[in-house]
């Protein structure tokens, strides 16, 4: 197990190299740099010489490969550099944004689970009944509303009409996180629900369900003890993917609700061409990707004895 985990983490290295390099390259080809960006929206004009001086200061005049390796060298020494825009240490910036993102991730995942699993199971068990159709219809709605629109609706109804949640997040608290979390949970639940339904239907058709019935076991017992547990593998897979995406920050929702998280940071950094932050972000994403994959595999092992005990064929 340990060996396996180490192996997976080692796999991270080439991925990290590839994607940081790519991102560096792309941002570079993307033309304008932070210095040019800084001049935008201000309504004024600065001389080329001043711009060049500013570039030199940031090392932006050097060839792209040099810049990349300088960055890499620093990184290996544990220094992620400073933001070009704010001048603050990238690492500190990053750490300061994490709690918000973590809270949002946790609450929206939790909400998603609370909404989607019971409904998914219900709609599978009541297949082709009114309840099923209703649940599926709701999932269609959830699936076809863009995030930004859902958040507008929520703001309108929950913050203007009934005033139970604040429009803008004032702090990293449960009350503030509610609306962004609901927004994210709506879209995710809609997807999960369908998957849970499909998995449960699949499980329902398996022999062991008939087996339990033939032994006189109550359906609800089978449902909770066997079907749920078996479906959990699917749910975990989805969850892990979502956690990965959420930990990367959700640019749209975060910026609409003024939720000061990693996603908003990334979008701002990209639009400002703040390379050090972008690099840190890209690295973060790659690390999440690999870790999430690892965790998924490990949780399969935990959940499914066939994998844990090496019983699965092939």
């Amino acid at each position, binding site marked *: 197990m340990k060996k396996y985990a180490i192996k997976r983490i080692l796999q991270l290295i080439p991925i990290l190299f590839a*994607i940081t390099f790519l991102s560096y390259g792309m941002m570079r080809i993307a033309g304008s740099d932070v210095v040019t960006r800084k001049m935008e929206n201000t309504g004024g004009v600065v001389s080329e010489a001043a711009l060049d001086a500013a570039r030199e200061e940031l090392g932006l005049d050097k060839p792209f490969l040099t810049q990349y390796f300088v960055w890499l060298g620093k990184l290996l020494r544990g220094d992620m550099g400073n933001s070009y825009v704010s001048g603050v240490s990238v690492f500190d910036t990053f750490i300061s944004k994490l709690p918000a993102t973590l809270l949002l991730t946790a609450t929206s995942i939790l909400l998603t689970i609370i909404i989607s699993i019971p409904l998914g199971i219900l709609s599978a068990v009541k297949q082709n009944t009114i309840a099923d159709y209703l649940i599926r219809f709701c999932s*269609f709605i959830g699936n076809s509303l863009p995030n930004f629109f859902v958040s507008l609706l929520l703001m309108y109804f929950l913050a203007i009409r009934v005033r139970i949640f604040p429009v803008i997040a004032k702090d990293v608290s449960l009350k503030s996180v509610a609306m962004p979390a609901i927004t994210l949970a709506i879209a995710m639940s809609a997807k999960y629900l369908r998957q849970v339904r499909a998995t449960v239907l699949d499980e329902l*058709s398996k022999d062991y369900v008939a087996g339990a019935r033939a032994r006189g076991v109550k359906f609800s017992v089978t449902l909770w003890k066997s079907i749920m547990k078996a479906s959990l593998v699917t749910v975990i897979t989805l969850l892990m993917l979502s956690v990965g995406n959420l930990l*990367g920050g959700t640019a749209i929702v975060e910026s609409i609700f003024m939720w000061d998280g990693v996603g908003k940071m*990334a979008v701002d950094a990209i639009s400002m061409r703040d390379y050090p932050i972008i690099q840190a972000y*890209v690295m973060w994403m790659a690390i999440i990707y690999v870790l999430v994959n690892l965790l998924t595999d490990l949780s399969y092992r935990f959940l499914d004895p066939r994998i844990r005990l090496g019983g699965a064929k092939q």
Partner: protein
Amino acid sequence: MGKKEQGRCQKESVVLKNGQSTDNGKHVTVRVQRIRKIHIKQKLIIFSVLAVCLVVLAVFSDHLCPYDPYAQDLSSALQAPSLQHPMGTDTYGRDMLSRVISGARASIFSTFILVAVISVFGTIVGLCCGYYGGILDSVMMRISDVCLAFPGLVFAMAIAAILGGGIQNAIIALAVVSWPKYSRIARSQTLALKEEPYIHAAILAGDSSAQILVRHVLPNMIGPVLVTAMLDIGTMMMELAGLSFLGLGAQIPMAEWGSMMSGGRSMIQTYPWVVLSPGIAIFISVVIFNLLGDTVRDYLDPKNSRIK
């Protein structure tokens, strides 16, 4: 479960009269079974027709618009829905209905093209990786890892910065981060199919690898890919709308549902039709393609082979 069974099958105990009984005078209990067949084929046809309608709408949108979707008339800006303008008008006084119809082209076509490109490319890669294995497999799978691990947003924004905004570039960005999904599905399907006896039989019949891939593996693995693609049409529409929100989607004044929604979102309270009209269009098409995807899945499910 039992209840459902009972609900479905209406039970009537009927004691047949002696003379009518075929059972030599014995009393036989008869239960009437109410048959509710699920006509998957009919469902498939209905949803396919609806989907085709959408596509036709997209193709002929130019001819179907009651007004020029780009013709402005500032004097009649932001009119509420009326007989003249069933969906009202937008900020520029353009007819919303016409814009929604015309938007079908951009929205449906772009998602179609996107999904077509990623599913075809991903499938080919997955097929080859799964079938040939070896170096090709390792390399392509690492590349797909990188694409998956690469934050899509960074990519989209970089692409937009390199190539400029616009829907084509949003499509490129989404394509790069989405194809690995297909290659993974295709690969795992291919790996499983590779060991099927009929593939072995084909080898014995002297088929070349390419023939086997095209004639046997591809047709048998395309089901899950197709279903994913159908469902992805909805997903991609959402993603494009998200990119539009970030200013990375369609360029003005292009009528595209996602950007119409994001452009009109501040009017949700004041002039709701501006944002609801494209919203409803998105909803309808997402629902149609999702239902089609579900039905295709049911259709391909061997469990349902009897009730087709």
